[in-house]
């Protein structure tokens, strides 16, 4: 089956589960507790234009924050991970400051960035910064000696070592941490768009405004989920481009045979032992 069919099936199952939960709760309590997905989808359609505006505002906040956090955290994390002395000096600081919930710093952020969008971006960036920093550091620590020796013996300077070995080797881990941080980013996005930072734009403000008409609020929730989905898809596309080497396979060898088809295994096995080794 095609991959897109699986995606459609996946979303359908999710909606059915939601519907099931909604019906069960309604049956148990004798009145509707959460709206069913169809009502929420109807509301999405009804508030389409408004939701679109909020979607763009939220996407911009989260997207910009993710980019800022990545651009700052990646070089810093790679350096801390690779330079041993820097690691010893900086890592204790990270371990001490990371557990402090960034929200605690809000009053200070207000003073520095005022009450506008910049404080929202600052809050989200700050939280994502640590997540990406820690992953980048970990990845840079695990670089294989062989790859380092390989470029060092070719006369690479420090910048070239980062450019050709440490950064590309760490990219998969960095992209994974970006994916993970979308969850945290969403939570902080919502927080930053509702009290005490209530604003008139963004999905968070939309949901908060319709808190007592759940059908509409859930339309906002669906749109928020859609925002997450869009970001994940974007990150997947980025990974396919910058980590293309991770998606290749040896072409002269059969892939690991599926356990479900014994005949296929036999066929592939025979092909394998009959193949003459053309290359040396």
């Amino acid at each position, binding site marked *: 089956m095609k991959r897109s069919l699986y995606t459609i099936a996946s979303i359908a199952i999710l909606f059915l589960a939601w519907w099931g939960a909604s019906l069960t709760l309604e049956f148990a309590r004798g009145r509707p507790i959460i709206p069913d997905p169809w009502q929420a989808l109807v509301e999405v359609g009804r508030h389409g234009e408004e939701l679109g505006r909020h979607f763009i505002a939220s996407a911009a906040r989260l997207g910009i924050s993710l980019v800022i956090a990545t651009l700052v955290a990646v070089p810093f994390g790679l350096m801390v991970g690779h330079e041993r002395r820097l690691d010893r000096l900086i890592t204790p600081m990270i371990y001490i400051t990371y557990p402090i919930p960034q929200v605690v710093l809000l009053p200070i952020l207000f003073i520095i960035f005022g009450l506008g969008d910049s404080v929202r971006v600052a809050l989200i960036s700050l939280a994502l910064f640590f997540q990406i920093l820690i992953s980048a550091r970990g990845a840079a620590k695990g670089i294989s000696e062989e*790859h380092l*020796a*390989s470029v060092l013996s070719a*006369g*690479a300077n420090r910048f070239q070592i980062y450019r*050709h070995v440490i950064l590309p080797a760490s990219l998969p881990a960095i992209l994974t941490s970006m994916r993970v941080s979308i969850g945290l980013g969403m939570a902080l996005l919502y927080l930053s768009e509702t009290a005490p930072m209530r604003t008139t734009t963004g999905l968070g403000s939309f949901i908060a405004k319709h808190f007592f008409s759940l059908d509409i609020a859930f339309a906002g929730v669906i749109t928020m989920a859609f925002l997450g989905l869009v970001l994940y898809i974007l990150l997947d596309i980025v990974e396919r481009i910058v980590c293309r*080497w991770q998606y290749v396979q*040896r072409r002269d060898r059969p892939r690991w045979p599926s356990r479900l088809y014994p005949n296929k295994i036999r066929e592939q096995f025979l092909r394998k032992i009959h193949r003459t080794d053309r*290359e*040396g």
Partner: protein
Amino acid sequence: MIEVEGLKISYGAAGRLIEAVNEVGFSIDSGDSLALIGPSGCGKTSILFAIAGLVKPDAGNLSIAGERVDGIRRDAALILQNAGLLPWKTVWENANMSLRLSHRYPAENAAAVLEELGLAEFRDRFPAELSEGMKRRVGIARALSISPSVMLMDEPLASLDAITQERIQNLFLELWKQRGFTMVFVTHDIEEAVFLGQRIIVLSKRPAQIKAVVENPQMGELDYRESKEFHRLVIELRAVMQR
């Protein structure tokens, strides 16, 4: 000419110092080939890395063509154990790596070498798409691209199947004869040492010291493997190594 004198190398921090190499000395004329053979983990790679300028010895003198080795030399190429390919770079990018990093040679050099080694049609593939034998050849291409006068190899054929191993040994022999570089290679394979080494230095367990030096003047032809002399030397070397 490569001269090594009283070489001492150790690893680790003070207090837990591991001596890798102790008082090793030898010399090799330009265009000759030398095999360093010894048990696994005996410190032979350390000697090679010191010649390559990657590892700073604690004591001793090292010189290539009369110049003291202190850092990477542009006329010396190093081939690492698993070819040292970067998995995120294509065959072409890997082969052209040494040239690109030093901004000095024309890129045609790497292209010509890829062509020569029969890798031209694979230039856009990634290492993960290649067989082990082809990966090694890409490593060789990278080394040859800088037209080195010294070729240093760290177990270049380890973990290859026997047939591929022989093919690449033959390739090394031909390239060595054709291009006339000085070849120093580390191996733990006795037959490889006898096939490719004009002189074979047998090293002891760590810390590496020279146990014996075996001269091998008759090497140099592809059919040497079938000769009586080859087998005699293999047996002799085995006896020395087991001592």
